[in-house]
C-alpha cells in the first residue's frame, strides 16, 4: 500500500493500461470483420445496415458496438456535399449582367461570387506572370482580342531572366548583405540554365499574389482579435484546427468551390496561410510592453494612430516573422496545389513523379528547395533588419540599390537585344531559357537511380520485405485489433490523468468524432504509420540533438541544417525515397521519419540550450560529471520543451503520412487523394481532413496540457 501512496500516478496509469488490455482481450474480433469495410456509401450489399438522417441514407457494415461504433456521422460528408451543391447551384438565383453576351443571365449568387473572385484572382496572377514571362492576357482583359491583332507590339514582352536575377541579388544585398546576394544570384542563374525558368516564375507569380493577400487578411484579423476578445474566441478553434489540418485536405473543397487552376489554389492557399499570420500578429501585439501603449495614449493618439504609428511598428519583427511564415506556407501550397492544376514547379514535379522520371523530379525538387531557402532567408533577413537612419545620407547613398537595379535593367535589355542577333536561329538564351532546353542532368540521375537499383536491389528488397513483414504488418494488425471501446477508454483515461476532467472531455469529443465517422479503420492505419514514424524520429532526433548539444558549434550547425530542411515543401521529400525504395509503404515511412526528425532534433537542442547557465554552473560546482549533469539537470529541465518537440513531430509525421498517399498507402490520405478526383469529393475530403486534424489535436491537447503543468511545477516559462 505504501508503494501506491508513494507513486499514485504510476498506479493510475498501470490501472488504465490494465483496463485497456482487459477490454482488448474481452472483445473478440467479429467473424465478418475484414480490414476496411470498403466505401460503404458507394457499394450496395445485402449485408449492410442503413439508417436515414436528415434525409441522407447512410449504409454501413454493422458490428458489435464495442468492436466498432456505427458510423453515426456518416451522413456528414454527404450532407456537406449536398449543401455545397445546393449553395453553388440553386441558392438565391439572381440576374447578373453578362459582358460577353450583353444580356442578363440568371445565376445562383454564390456561383456568381465564386466566378467573380476566380476571375479577379486569375487576372492578378496573369498580370504578374506576364510581367515576368510575357503574354497578352492582361492587355486583352483591358481591351479586346481585336486590339491585340491590330497592335501586336502591345503584347507584354516579359522580363529577360538576367534582370530578374539581378533584381533578386540586389534585393538580397539590401536586406542582408553580400552572402545572400551571391546565393540569390547563383540560384537564379542555376534555375535559368537548367531550363526551369518558366515554371519557377509561374510559382513565383503565384506567391506574389497569394502572400500579400494572405498577409493583409492575416494582419487585419490579427488586429481584430487583439482588439476584441470575442473575435479571438471565435477564431481560436479555427486556428487550432488549421494548424493540424494537412494542407492536402483543404484542396478538395477548393476544387468544388472554385474549380481547377491557379486561382482556386491561390484562394485556398490564403485559407492555409492566414492562420499563422493571425497568430504571429497577435503574438507581436501582445508582446508590446503596456507602457509603450500608455505612452502612445498619453501622446494623444487616436485609436487609429495608436494602431498604425505605435503598435504595428513596435511589433514589426513579429509581424515580419509572420510574413516569413506566410511566404513559406504559400510556397509549399504552390507546390502541393499542382494536384488541383496550379502551374509551376509543383506541376512539373508531380508530372515527373507520375512518370517515375526521378531525374526530372530531382531537378525540379532541387529548384524548389533552392527557391525555398532563398525566400526563407530573404524574408527572415527582412524581419531581423533594423531600421537605419538615412536623413543625412546623400541622394546617391539613399537610392544606391535602386540605381543599381536601373542599371541592371538597362544592361539586361541590351543583352537580350544583343542576344536576338547572336542567337538568330532558335532561342534567345539571354532572354529566356525555354523549359527543358537548358542543361539537363535528368539522364545522369536516372542512370544513377538505375545503378543504385541494380547494385543494391537485393539488399533494399530484403530490407523492405523484412520491415513490412516483421515490423509493419504486425504493428498494423495490432492497431486494427483494438476494439473502439478500448481505444476510447485509453485515450479518455489518458486525458483524465493528464489534464483532469476538462482535458478528458475534449479528447473524448475529438476521438468520438473520428470513431463515428465512416473511417475509423483508416484513421487507425494513419495513426499506426504516424506512430511508427514518430517513434523512430524521436529516437533519432533526441540522440542526434543530445550529441550535437555537447559542442556549441555542432549544435549551431545542426540547428542551421534543421532550418534549411524545414523550409522544403514536404512534397520534395518523396523524391529521394522513391528513388531508393520505389513505391512502397517503406518509402512513405522513410519520408515521414526524415521529415519528422527535424522538429525532434531542433526542440531537443533548443530545450537543452534553454537550461539556465546559472544552473549549469551550480551543477558543475557540485561536482557532477558530464553524464550526471545531462541526466540529473539538463534532461529534467529540458523535458517540457522536448515534449513540445514531440508534439511538432507528430504533426509533421501526420502531414507526411497523408501526402504519402500519393505513393500509395491505405490510410486516410488515400481517400483524400481519391476525393480529389471525385466530383462529390468535397464533403469526404473535408471530413477526412478534419479527422486527420483531430488525430493531431488529441495528441496536441494531451501534450500541451502536460507541458503546461510540468512547466508550472518546475517554475519555468
Amino acid at each position, binding site marked *: 500500500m505504501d508503494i501506491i501512496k508513494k507513486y499514485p500516478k504510476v498506479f493510475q496509469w498501470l490501472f488504465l493500461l490494465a483496463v485497456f488490455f482487459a477490454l482488448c482481450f474481452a472483445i473478440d474480433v467479429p467473424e465478418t470483420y475484414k480490414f476496411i469495410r470498403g466505401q460503404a456509401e458507394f457499394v450496395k450489399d445485402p449485408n449492410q445496415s442503413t439508417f436515414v438522417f436528415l434525409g441522407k441514407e447512410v449504409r454501413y457494415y454493422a458490428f458489435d458496438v464495442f468492436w466498432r461504433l456505427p458510423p453515426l456521422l456518416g451522413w456528414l460528408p454527404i450532407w456537406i456535399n449536398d449543401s455545397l451543391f445546393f449553395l453553388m447551384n440553386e441558392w438565391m438565383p439572381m440576374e447578373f449582367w453578362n459582358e460577353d453576351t450583353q444580356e442578363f443571365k440568371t445565376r445562383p449568387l454564390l456561383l456568381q461570387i465564386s466566378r467573380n473572385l476566380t476571375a479577379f484572382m486569375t487576372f492578378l496572377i496573369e498580370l504578374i506572370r506576364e510581367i515576368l514571362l510575357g503574354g497578352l492576357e492582361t492587355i486583352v482583359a483591358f481591351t479586346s482580342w481585336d486590339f491585340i491583332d491590330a497592335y501586336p507590339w502591345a503584347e507584354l514582352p516579359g522580363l529577360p531572366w538576367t534582370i530578374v536575377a539581378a533584381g533578386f541579388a540586389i534585393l538580397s544585398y539590401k536586406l542582408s548583405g553580400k552572402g545572400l546576394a551571391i546565393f540569390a544570384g547563383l540560384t537564379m542563374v542555376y534555375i535559368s540554365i537548367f531550363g526551369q525558368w518558366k515554371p519557377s516564375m509561374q510559382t513565383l507569380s503565384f506567391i506574389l499574389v497569394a502572400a500579400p493577400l494572405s498577409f493583409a487578411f492575416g494582419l487585419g484579423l490579427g488586429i481584430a482579435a487583439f482588439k476584441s476578445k470575442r473575435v479571438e474566441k471565435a477564431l481560436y478553434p479555427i486556428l487550432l484546427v488549421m494548424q493540424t489540418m494537412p494542407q492536402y485536405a483543404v484542396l478538395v473543397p477548393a476544387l468544388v468551390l472554385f474549380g481547377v487552376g491557379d486561382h482556386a489554389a491561390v484562394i485556398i492557399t490564403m485559407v492555409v496561410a492566414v492562420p499563422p499570420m493571425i497568430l504571429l500578429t497577435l503574438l507581436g501585439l501582445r508582446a508590446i*510592453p503596456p*507602457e*509603450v501603449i*500608455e*505612452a502612445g*495614449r*498619453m*501622446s*494623444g*493618439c*487616436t485609436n487609429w*494612430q495608436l494602431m498604425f*504609428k*505605435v503598435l504595428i*511598428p*513596435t511589433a*514589426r519583427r513579429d509581424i515580419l516573422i509572420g510574413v516569413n511564415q506566410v511566404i513559406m506556407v504559400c510556397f509549399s501550397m504552390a507546390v502541393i496545389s499542382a494536384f488541383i492544376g496550379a502551374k509551376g514547379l509543383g506541376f512539373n514535379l508531380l508530372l515527373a513523379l507520375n512518370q517515375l522520371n526521378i531525374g526530372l523530379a530531382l531537378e525540379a525538387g532541387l529548384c524548389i528547395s533552392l527557391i525555398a531557402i532563398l525566400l526563407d532567408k530573404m524574408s527572415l533577413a527582412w524581419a531581423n533588419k*533594423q*531600421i537605419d*537612419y538615412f*536623413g*543625412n545620407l546623400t541622394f546617391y547613398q539613399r537610392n544606391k540599390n535602386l540605381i543599381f537595379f536601373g542599371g541592371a535593367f538597362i544592361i539586361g535589355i541590351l543583352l537580350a537585344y544583343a542576344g536576338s542577333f547572336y542567337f538568330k536561329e532558335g532561342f534567345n538564351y539571354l532572354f529566356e531559357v525555354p523549359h527543358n532546353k537548358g542543361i539537363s542532368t535528368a539522364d545522369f540521375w536516372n542512370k544513377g537511380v538505375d545503378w543504385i537499383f541494380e547494385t543494391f536491389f537485393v539488399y533494399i528488397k530484403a530490407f523492405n520485405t523484412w520491415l513490412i513483414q516483421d515490423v509493419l504488418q504486425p504493428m498494423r494488425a495490432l492497431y486494427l485489433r483494438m476494439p473502439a471501446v478500448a481505444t476510447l477508454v485509453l485515450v479518455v483515461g489518458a486525458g483524465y490523468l493528464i489534464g483532469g476532467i476538462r482535458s478528458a472531455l475534449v479528447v473524448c469529443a475529438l476521438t468520438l468524432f473520428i470513431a463515428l465517422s465512416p473511417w475509423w479503420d483508416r484513421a487507425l492505419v494513419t495513426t499506426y504509420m504516424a506512430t511508427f514514424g514518430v517513434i523512430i524520429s524521436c529516437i533519432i532526433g533526441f540522440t542526434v540533438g543530445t550529441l550535437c548539444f555537447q559542442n556549441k558549434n555542432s549544435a549551431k550547425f545542426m540547428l542551421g541544417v534543421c532550418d534549411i530542411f524545414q523550409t522544403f515543401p514536404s512534397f520534395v521529400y518523396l523524391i529521394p525515397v522513391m528513388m531508393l525504395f520505389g513505391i512502397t509503404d517503406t518509402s512513405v515511412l522513410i519520408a515521414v521519419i526524415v521529415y519528422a526528425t527535424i522538429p525532434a532534433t531542433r526542440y531537443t537542442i533548443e530545450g537543452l540550450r534553454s537550461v539556465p547557465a546559472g544552473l549549469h554552473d551550480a551543477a558543475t560546482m557540485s561536482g557532477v560529471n558530464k553524464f550526471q549533469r545531462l541526466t540529473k539537470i539538463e534532461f529534467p529541465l529540458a523535458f517540457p520543451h522536448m515534449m513540445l518537440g514531440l508534439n511538432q513531430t507528430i504533426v509533421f509525421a501526420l502531414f507526411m503520412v497523408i501526402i504519402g498517399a500519393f505513393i500509395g498507402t491505405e490510410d486516410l490520405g488515400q481517400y483524400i487523394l481519391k476525393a480529389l478526383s471525385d466530383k462529390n469529393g468535397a464533403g469526404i475530403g473535408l471530413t477526412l481532413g478534419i479527422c486527420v486534424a483531430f488525430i493531431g489535436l488529441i495528441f496536441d491537447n494531451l501534450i500541451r496540457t502536460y507541458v503546461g503543468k510540468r512547466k508550472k511545477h518546475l517554475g519555468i516559462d
Partner: protein
Amino acid sequence: MSEAVIKCENVYKIFGTNAQKMLQEANGNVDAKTFQENGCIVGVNDASFEVSKGEMLVVMGLSGSGKSTLLRCISRLTDATGGKIFIEGQDLLKLNNKELINLRRNKMGMVFQSFALLPHKTVVENIAFPLQIKGIKTEDSISKAMDMVKLVGLDGRENYFPRELSGGQQQRVGIARSLAVEPDIWFLDEPFSALDPLIRKEMQDEFLRLQEKLQKTIMFITHDFDEALKLADRIAIMKDGIIEQLDTPANIVLNPATEYVKKFTEEVPREKVLTIEDVMDKTNSESSDLKVLKDEIIENVAEKILTQEKSVSVIDQDNKIVGSINPSKIIQTVFGGRKSNS
C-alpha cells in the same frame, strides 16, 4: 494656496467583474479583504487630495500599493471605479474620447519607468511624436523637438535610435518627449527606478533643475523614500490602495501618522531633510552673533552652529529674527532624534 490643478474626491479603483456593483453596496466603506473574497482587487481606496499649480506631489509606496494605479486613474489610462477627478476644474471622467485626446495632446505629459520609447524612431522623431500626432507640420515639430533635445542635453545624439542609448539617455528622451507639447501637468511614473544609483542621482538633480525652470504641476511616483524626500513639495504615502499620510517631507519625518509611515522615517538622516525652521524654538532667547537662515538644511549649517556655545538666531529672507536654535537641539536631532521622537 493657489487653485487646484488636480483634484481627487473619494477616488476608488477596483479590479474585477462586478466591481461597480460591489462598490455601490459597500457604501463608501471598502474593505480589501471582503472584496478579495468576492474576486475583486482593490487598487485605490478612497483617495482624496489636491495638487496646486506648480506643486510637486510625490506618491510613495511599495510595489502593489496602488500608486501607479492612482496615477493611471488621474491620467485616465484606466477609468476610476468611483469618485471624482477634476483637472483644472474639468470633470475628467465625464470627458468623451475626443475631449480626452485633446486634453492629453495639450495639457498632459507622462514619463514611464521603462522609458516606453518607440523602437523604430530616432531620438528626435520620438520626441517629435506627440507633436506629429497633433498634426503639426514636420519641420515645425522637428525644430521644436530639437529644442527639447538641447534642453535635456542630448545634442549630437538626435539621430540615434533608442537601442543605441544608455538607460539614462533613454529616460532623457522620455522626459523630452513628455515635455514636447509643453504640458501644464506632468506625470512621472517611477522615472528613475530602472537606472543605476549614480545615474539616478544625476537624473534627480537634472530633474530639479528642469522643474526650477519650468514650474510644472507634477505628480511623481516612486518607491524610493529618499527620492521622495529629495524631490517633493508634499509626499503621499500609500499602502494597500489607501493614502496613509499626505504631508510635507519635514512633517512626515517629524510626525509620522501611522506605524507604517514610521518604518520609513526611522532610517532617514534627519539633518539632510529638515530645515532649521523645523526644529527651532519660536521664542527668542539670548543668542550669539551668528545668524542662520530658516530655510537652510540642518546638515549645511550644523557645523557652524555647533561651534557656538549659546543659541543661534534664526532669520528669514528679510533678515528678521524669527526664532533661535540651541546647539544641543542640533545634536539631539542628528543623533538622538530617532529615539526621543519615537
